[in-house]
């Protein structure tokens, strides 16, 4: 246990914060602990946390995808347009929307891997471009009246108190954890994020890996966008606008290094739960939205700062090996 804590400092810290939050919320708002509310607090941000799972992979791999929110809007817009003009059956329309999202990811992925442009730049352009594409499709209109089953999928519970989206998220999270921790793919994601050259010299096809990740990220964003459409019951060009910052914040708060190579799905999950519970608790306490944002921002800085400060005070007892005299000697 102790060793686990030492090797999972960040996760432990987050766990503490999370527990504190839950206790605080329970005291402040009696209604907080109701099943309905617990489901609600996930369900209200379900699209963000679904995309965050994919984003974790991308960032651990040493890249970033700023375009996710725009791709969400874009794929939903594609779905809506197809539905409005009733060109194809709704099921097909969903598939087409996902394919379009995949293509969006492919374009960006190729720009990154083949042209060697930093993903930050490429996806920044994507952020503007795909949002624009969504606007082009829907202009100032909003498209609704989706099939009954689709709305139900997004708005009603599926199993017990759980709506489809929440189940999907839990499955994705578990899958993400498994792939990252247990599979060769996850292994490669870490190694490549830590040092692409080493990966390349070990026979890993780095470009192919990055390409797949960026496509995957876009597809997940597409799914989330469609899910959002179902939850809202209608789509407009601005769907999910500005979500990218919240999503990236959750991943970074999860202890994923922005430089890639480190971080864990457990940390990301804890970060999600913490953020959502804090927001929900403050919401029930009638705290204004702008203050909620500020608190999450402070949390982001604080959780990164506090451990360092503590580290400063206990330099006398450094981590074993880290200061080993000749460890660094080549």
């Amino acid at each position, binding site marked *: 246990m102790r060793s686990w804590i030492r090797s999972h400092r960040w996760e432990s810290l987050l766990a503490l914060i999370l527990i504190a939050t839950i206790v605080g919320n329970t005291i402040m708002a009696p*209604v907080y602990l109701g099943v309905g509310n617990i489901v609600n607090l996930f369900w209200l941000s379900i699209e963000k946390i679904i995309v965050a799972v994919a984003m974790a992979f991308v960032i651990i791999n040493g890249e970033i995808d700023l375009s996710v929110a725009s791709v969400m809007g874009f794929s939903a817009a594609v779905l809506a347009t197809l539905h409005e003009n009733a060109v194809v059956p709704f099921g097909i329309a969903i598939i087409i929307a996902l394919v379009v999202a995949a293509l969006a990811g492919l374009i960006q992925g190729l720009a990154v891997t083949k042209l060697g442009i930093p993903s930050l730049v490429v996806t920044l352009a994507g952020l503007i471009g795909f949002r624009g594409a969504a606007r082009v499709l829907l202009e100032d209109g909003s498209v609704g009246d989706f099939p009954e089953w689709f709305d139900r999928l997004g708005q009603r519970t599926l199993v017990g108190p759980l709506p489809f989206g929440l189940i999907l998220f839990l499955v994705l999270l578990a899958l993400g954890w498994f792939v990252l921790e247990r599979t060769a793919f996850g292994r490669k994601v870490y190694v490549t994020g830590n040092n692409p050259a080493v990966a390349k010299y070990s026979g890993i096809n780095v470009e192919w890996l990055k390409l797949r990740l960026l496509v995957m990220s876009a597809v997940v964003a597409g799914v989330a966008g469609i899910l959002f459409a179902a939850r809202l019951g209608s789509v*407009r060009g601005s769907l999910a606008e500005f979500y990218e910052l919240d999503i990236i914040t959750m991943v970074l708060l999860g202890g994923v290094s922005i430089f890639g190579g480190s971080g864990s799905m457990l940390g990301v999950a804890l970060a999600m739960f913490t953020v959502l519970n804090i927001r929900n608790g403050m*919401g029930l306490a009638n705290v204004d939205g702008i203050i909620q944002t500020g608190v999450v921002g402070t949390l982001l800085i604080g959780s990164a700062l506090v451990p360092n400060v503590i580290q400063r005070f206990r330099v006398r007892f450094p981590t074993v090996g880290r200061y080993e005299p000749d460890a660094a000697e080549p």
Partner: protein
Amino acid sequence: MTSKRVWIKRLAFLSVVAMLVAACGGSDNDTTTTAAQDSPATTAATETTAATETTAATETTAATETTAATETTAAATGVVTISPAESIPTTFLPKCTNIPVFPQANDGAVEAAGELGSEEAAFVGPADCGDATGQIDFMANAVTQGVAAIMVSNNAGDELAPSAQAAADAGIPVVSWDSPIPSAEGESVFIAQVDFDETGTVMADMALEILGEDGGQFAVLSATPEAANQNAWIAAMEEVLAGPDYADLDLVDTVYGNDVAEDSLNQALALVDSYPDLELIMAPTTVGIVAAAQALTQEGLCDEVKVSGLGLPDEMREYTLSGCAPQFALWSFQDLGYLAYYVAYGLATGQIEAVEGQSFVAGRMGEYTIEADPTRDAGLRVLMGPFSVYDETNVGG
């Protein structure tokens, strides 16, 4: 919870008394209206009968609610003076909290709550208005908290419908103000600041007034392409413009400043550059109109191009006095919030019903009647009005 039980008991008792009073009070039609004003007894009667049933309804099941509805049609025929019953928790949900008009509206709600001896509504909302779907979280939280009523200025379209429906299912009346839920799903009633068609007329008239008889070119600088009521107003104005009196007014373009000052500035200037003969920019948004006036003032273009639309007196005063924005219109957001709270309170305490023909008196603002909303396919509305058109005579300063 306990407190709730207490006032149910109290109401039950009151209602019994009310029955008796009502019985001997009789129902002489031409007196009821006056009676409504001067005899608290009768109003107490009608009010409280309604109260018991609907609270029963909210407390128990939809089944009793229907019966409540049928019985209260009686109450609906009379004019109800919404008056202090008990203090209830409510949520006052603006599009966002950091645009001046919304705190103003909230002031109205607070004023009303004071008069009705109820606790102030929780004034919460998204951090900024760019976040169209941010209100959903606050709706959901309000439902979880089990508030007695929600007052919302819808920042999206029907995206809000599912969560409004959820509130309705939980027996919480949803009163929309300033901007309605288009499909009216889950919405009890919409407090319309002014008639949307009237907005069109007012804007067209201001344009005519400024451009003069010989007319000329003008363009619209709106908020976001998605903004529901801006789009409705513009549509209404275009209809009016089709009329013969406005034949010489030439609407050349509609652009969007996204309610962001800087975008609006650039858009306004781009309009001036793209249309050399442009004489007027009509901005049906408080952000856009100021930005446009500011841009034209700075570039010294006020002589060639004027600004008009919907604006806040405080923000427009300077430009109106300088002649850059000779005329603009707006309604009082304080009154809007005030009226919204009265209606929400009336519904929550069961003094009134969200049914067509229900008339009521809302404190200092006097009598209103719930009617079918002509600007939407479905839904009820209370039309506040009137427009106040500002020019250098009444803009103050």
